[in-house]
């Protein structure tokens, strides 16, 4: 029987393993413990279950306006607590002012334009008349009653450099001449992106105008998370792709792109290409994105590193792999810290990109085995990680009988030895 000291040491190892804090020596000790102690295996499985339940509740997206509201608050602060000579407030740029007021004000102005027609490009908009005068000048196309959300915000926007640039920009003018574009821009979120060159250029593209006639795209543009995603350079460059817009219009995807880690993923050129791949346009990726376990997974740094690997990015374009990641059992497995760590190993990552392995992930029996505790423990123990690399294993695992055996406690124990 274990002494109290031994038991305490065992607990420390189990918790450190769960937290990914094992040293190399402790890892050896931990593997030995799991291989020899059924009680430790049971307690570790229980800890894994608890961790999964806790992390399942997942991160919450911060309020869409938190950054903007904070910027507004900060801009009103004087230099409290800042040493003399380190002025923060005084350097407030027009671009910054534009950002603060743009979200609300752009909506006001653009809705107004949509109602009353686009204002003529006159001297004011070409900069020969001051910005304040421009605002005060008669503009028959815009009646005061058309401004719904507050004249202060509108004034701030219209006096900003961002607005000035917008009016002088051929691409923006061309885009704003399109009724469908104006309608879509009436949403709060996208408007503030008008200051971005890539977005403005994209707005002029015929693809976007066509896409904006699609109700699903219009709905997507109404979601602030989506428009924030568009501020991602790589994605903004793809804004003219109607198919991509429709794919991203799914609320689950829109929710996912709010996450910074996912944002970095989606910025990956290979992944953007993958998103446009026919395989990714299947329902599989949508189902996968809706899975809480997978949602949790994409926020795991180890998995982000793993998915950022170019080899894996290629694997994601494989339809069998896409089909596999939509499977709940696999998504559950991937949240296993042991496997997440394993996936950072080059050998495992390479193995997963082999076509045979991708096919293996498409095997229902194999995926079922992946969901069993015994197999998860075996993966965490390390020996199986090495086996998974071999073609012999991949070949054998395709057999239903072998796949079923993978989930048994006996197999887990054997792998731990």
């Amino acid at each position, binding site marked *: 029987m274990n002494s109290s000291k031994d038991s305490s040491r065992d607990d420390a190892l189990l918790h450190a393993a769960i937290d990914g804090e094992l040293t190399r020596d402790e890892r050896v000790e931990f593997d030995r413990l799991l291989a020899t102690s059924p009680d430790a295996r049971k307690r570790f499985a229980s800890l894994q279950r608890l961790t999964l339940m806790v992390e399942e509740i997942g991160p919450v997206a911060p309020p869409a306006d938190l950054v903007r509201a*904070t910027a507004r608050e900060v801009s009103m602060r004087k230099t409290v607590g800042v040493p003399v000579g380190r002025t923060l407030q005084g350097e407030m740029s027009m671009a910054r002012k534009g950002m603060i007021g743009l979200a609300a004000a752009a909506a006001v102005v653009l809705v107004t334009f949509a109602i009353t027609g686009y204002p003529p490009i006159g001297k004011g908009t070409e900069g020969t008349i001051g910005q304040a005068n421009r605002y005060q000048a008669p503009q028959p196309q815009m009646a005061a009653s058309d401004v719904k959300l507050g004249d202060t915000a509108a004034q701030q926007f219209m006096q900003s450099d961002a607005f000035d640039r917008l009016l002088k920009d051929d691409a923006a003018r061309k885009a704003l001449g399109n009724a469908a574009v104006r309608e879509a821009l009436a949403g709060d979120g996208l408007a503030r992106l008008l200051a971005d060159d890539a977005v403005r250029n994209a707005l002029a593209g015929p693809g976007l105008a066509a896409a904006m006639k699609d109700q699903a795209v219009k709905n997507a543009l109404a979601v602030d998370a989506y428009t924030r995603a568009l501020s991602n350079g790589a994605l903004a460059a793809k804004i003219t792709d109607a198919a991509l817009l429709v794919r991203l219009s799914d609320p689950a995807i829109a929710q996912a792109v709010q996450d910074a880690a996912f944002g970095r993923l989606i910025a990956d050129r290979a992944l953007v290409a993958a998103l446009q791949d026919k395989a990714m346009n299947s329902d599989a990726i949508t189902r996968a994105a809706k899975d809480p376990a997978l949602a949790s997974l994409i926020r795991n740094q180890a998995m982000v590193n793993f998915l950022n690997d170019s080899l894996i990015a290629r694997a994601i374009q494989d339809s069998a792999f896409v089909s596999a990641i939509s499977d709940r059992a696999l998504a559950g497995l991937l949240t296993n810290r042991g496997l997440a760590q394993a996936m950072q190993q080059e050998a495992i990552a390479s193995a997963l990109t082999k076509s045979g392995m991708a096919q293996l992930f498409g095997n229902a029996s194999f995926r079922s085995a992946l969901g069993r505790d015994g197999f998860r423990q075996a993966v965490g123990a390390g020996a199986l990680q090495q086996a998974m690399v071999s073609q012999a294993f991949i070949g054998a695992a395709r057999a239903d009988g072998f796949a079923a055996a993978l989930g048994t406690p006996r197999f887990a124990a054997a792998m731990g030895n």
Partner: protein
Amino acid sequence: MYLDQSVDDAEAVRRCLNGEPAAFDTLVARYQQVLFNVAFRMLGDYEEARDAAQNTFVKVYEKLGSYDPQRRFFSWLYRILMNECLNLRRRPAADSFSGRMELAVADRTAPDAVEAAERRRAVKQAILALQPDYREVIVLRHFAALSYEEMSDAIGVPAKTVKSRLYSARQQLASELAAWMKR
């Protein structure tokens, strides 16, 4: 949830103090997710968490000149956030609006979705029921992905204490959630 490692906090602070306020936006963008989530899990209320996060950023801005670049920026930020959470804490809010909405939506969906929503609600309540020093290690570990060393620095206790609190917190959570863990 995880932090963008490409951002150099000390450099952003330096630029800010040198009259480049846009650099502060970088810090807000980098920390808003983790700060809001820590506040939300500590307070259990979305609006209070929003206030705590925003107030923290404003105070950080005001006190930027006193930041010691030798310290981890997050640790400094975290201490201010915890003070804000303490100031805002008015009620347990275990039966939060978002939780009730989640169940209301789940009620109209498949049985397993209802069960999952109930399970998540039970987990949230169990976390909120933990004493504050246990709750904060669970939150920092599972929702901010901090290492033992980073937690030690942020909370201001030895790593050994962090581990001990994590162990006790998990024991308590496992006890509270025993029925769910058997399913």
